[in-house]
């Protein structure tokens, strides 16, 4: 199993609106490409006035083959690029981190 983390830092006061759009506009397409959403979190846990919030989404991919298939699908789907372009207006920072399980990790 492959895992990766998306860290999406949202401008102050915008996190709820961004989460709604993420759920509606991004997640269904990602799932159709073969990704499974493990979880989505917000940090800090409570929005602080005037301060940014980061959405952390963990995704899994079942195999190497599925990894490359979803990558090629995303590359050729203009909706994916359009989503991230639109999302830029809400985000001050974005990072995607690919993960390799440590030997003692319960999730592998």
């Amino acid at each position, binding site marked *: 199993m492959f895992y990766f983390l998306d860290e999406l830092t949202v401008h102050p006061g915008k996190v709820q609106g961004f989460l709604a759009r993420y759920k509606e506009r991004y997640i269904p397409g990602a799932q159709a490409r073969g990704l499974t959403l493990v979880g989505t979190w917000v940090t800090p846990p409570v929005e602080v006035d005037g301060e940014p919030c980061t959405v952390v989404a963990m995704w899994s991919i079942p195999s190497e083959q599925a990894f*490359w298939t979803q990558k090629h699908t995303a590359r050729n789907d203009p909706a994916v690029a359009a989503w991230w372009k639109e999302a830029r207006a809400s985000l001050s920072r974005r990072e*995607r981190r*690919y*993960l390799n399980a440590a030997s003692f990790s319960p999730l592998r």
Partner: protein
Amino acid sequence: MLRRVMFLKPRDGVTEQQMDGLFRACQEAPRHIPGVVGMQGGKNLIARVPEDAYMVDTLYRDLAAYETYRHHPYHEEALKPLFNRADPRSLVESYDAVFYEPLREEFPQPDMKNLLRRSLIVRIEPGTPPEQTLQWEKHIMEMPRHIPAIRNWAFARVMQTPRPSVWTHAWEMEIQDADAFRQYLDSPFHWGVVDRWFDPEWPMRIVAPRFLHGYYKTPATVLGWR
């Protein structure tokens, strides 16, 4: 040494036997044309679009040898008609070619037999900060250290002479077989480090989405031609 890699789209209706004839004509070139060290081609076994259907490799002693090749009667009479769309004998609808001299190359296994010779030709997005391009180049050239399936390899910045090109880099390798290519794909260094630069969903992607990619079977090394 000046290397040229071509990707060919055959004309409609051209058979593999006809393309084999084109490749035989290519293989004869070094016997006829001074300064052509090697020339051969093959069917791209992982072609995704018709433009990538076949590949041809050529190694010239230098740029002067390329100019000799261009004007040599063997090129004019035996090769050019097969590649020139305007010629009724042409087997090729279109082609894309890049020229390069390797920035770095290694041949730990020059005696490989019956291998796959693979080429990836890419374009770094215009406006990419030079330091990001350098980091990407560093990651590419680190791959052989992490992925034993990569045997002989070369990495290059594409030259803009003798003809201008939209492509910026060539990443070439020789691997034993399709299983070795799978090992290459499955390496965490590949999918977790290098491929981010190609990933349409990674914010720091710098490699343009369209590229030329392929491998073909060869009885012996191409990258090791000398």
